């Protein structure tokens, strides 16, 4: 599936929730289900520090695709991290750079990606894109 198809899939999943409680409960659930990042990657250099919560982001470039692993100490953020991984991990730099995480807006959680929310999520998206830019450059120079 393409990034856009997965985004649509996520939006469909969330459209079933009438109540905000259900929406957040689901985020908490997928946050809980997200496999924890390998402790050796949970280091300062992978830390994206927000005032409110922290996100760790690790990546590897395998076979032309970036594999992301990430985690947050806050569960709601972790749930959103899981969704971001679902769309952006195991993708080529080109795919990552061509797509915005607009599903967050569509599922009514836009406030979590606004620059005024210092939860590390916006910085995480930026960081993923930076990795994509870097690997794209490396690929071009080869």
């Amino acid at each position, binding site marked *: 599936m393409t990034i856009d198809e997965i985004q649509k899939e996520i939006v469909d999943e969330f459209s079933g929730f009438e109540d905000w409680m259900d929406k957040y409960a689901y985020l908490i659930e997928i946050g809980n289900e997200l496999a924890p990042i390998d402790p050796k990657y949970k280091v300062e250099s992978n830390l994206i520090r927000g005032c409110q919560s922290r996100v760790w982001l690790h990546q590897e470039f395998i076979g032309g695709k970036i594999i992301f692993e990430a985690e947050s*100490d806050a569960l*709601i*953020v972790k749930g959103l991290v899981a969704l971001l991984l679902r769309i952006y991990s195991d993708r080529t730099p080109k795919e990552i750079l061509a797509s915005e995480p607009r599903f967050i807006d569509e599922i009514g959680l836009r406030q979590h990606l606004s620059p005024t929310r210092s939860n590390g999520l916006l910085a995480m998206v930026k960081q993923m894109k930076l990795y994509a830019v870097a690997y794209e450059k490396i690929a071009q120079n080869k």
Partner: protein
Amino acid sequence: MSLDISAIRKEFPILDQKINGKPLIYFDNAATAQRPLQVIEKMDEFSLLTNANIHRATHTLANKTTEAFESARETVRNYVNAQEVAEVIFTHGTTESINLVAFSFGEAFINQGDEVVVTEMEHHANIVPWQMMCQRRGAILKAIPFADNGELCTDQFDSIVTDKTKIIAITHVSNTLGTVNPIAAIISKAHERNIPVLIDGAQGVPHFRIDVQALDCDFYAFSGHKIYGPTGIGVLYGKRKWLDQMPPFMGGGEMIDRVTLSRTTYNQLPYKFEAGTPNYVGAIGLASAIQFVQNLDHQELTIYENQFLTAATLKLKQIEGLKIYGEAPQKAGVVSFNIDGIHPFDLGTLLDQLGIAVRTGRLCADPVMDHFGVENMVRASFSFYNTFDEIDVFYKALIRLKAMF
């Protein structure tokens, strides 16, 4: 006379609204207290009819503005009982007030090897300016620790304060722990050794009537928005004997006496420390906020606030896995806590869905987070316009949200 909370709430129209479909419960008063209608109207009226720069012209509006600004200064002087208006400096807030003293006092009095003493429970605004100054002057910053219950370890005063200590800067009330520090005793102990004391009053003014002469503090700093006034205005009270000896903090208009291209002489107090166009609308709003507070029965307010804090604390303690940070016997205004297994960001986000505004995060007090070995906290902070019913709604919300995790 007993306090009529519903009448008081009518003065604060902002409280009467729904957030995410639920009646707003505003428990973030330690960050910004709401403004009563009279403050908003006063500022609006001033902006609509009078606005002009102060001290600089002969025209009527400028004179009216100057008069209003200086009358605001007198209102503040009277409120904190300063000896003279020259000792009341308008700033942008507590942070600027402390930076001003750290810089100017540092320039005049701090040398290589000198020491500055703060406490472990300070807001960053009462740590960082001193650190910056110490770095510049080659001085050393020391901190008096606090005990796990939030009380300041005053028994360590004598071992931390030495002959090299040049100034002590301490918060009146902790923004995180709520601890009310024994500032009068600390000031008198410091004065026995001729050490001046700055009080960070940001969280003190909302709960106490300040008498700087009775306290005998050398500096007292506070902000307008913590005492039901506007943001962007603050006060530095300083004793003339210090202010006279301190060089200006910033250069520019109003603080000068005469400028030539080779040399400038400075204006007299308080203008020496008020470079640039001051926030006169803010000052007028602050004066109006002070008048509002002065018209309330302070004794009744204190009783209500103490009862409220006790009730909220007892109620929250009924929640299993909830830990309160800071339970000093003398406490005011705030309850900071965590619930086992729930990240404060998650809790704050979900409480907002229920219309409840709290502060979450590091509360601008990293050393306090480090003391307890936590990354974040949730802080509920109260005002006299909060109702006891709101405590129940808050409690039920926490129980409901806790079940989601």
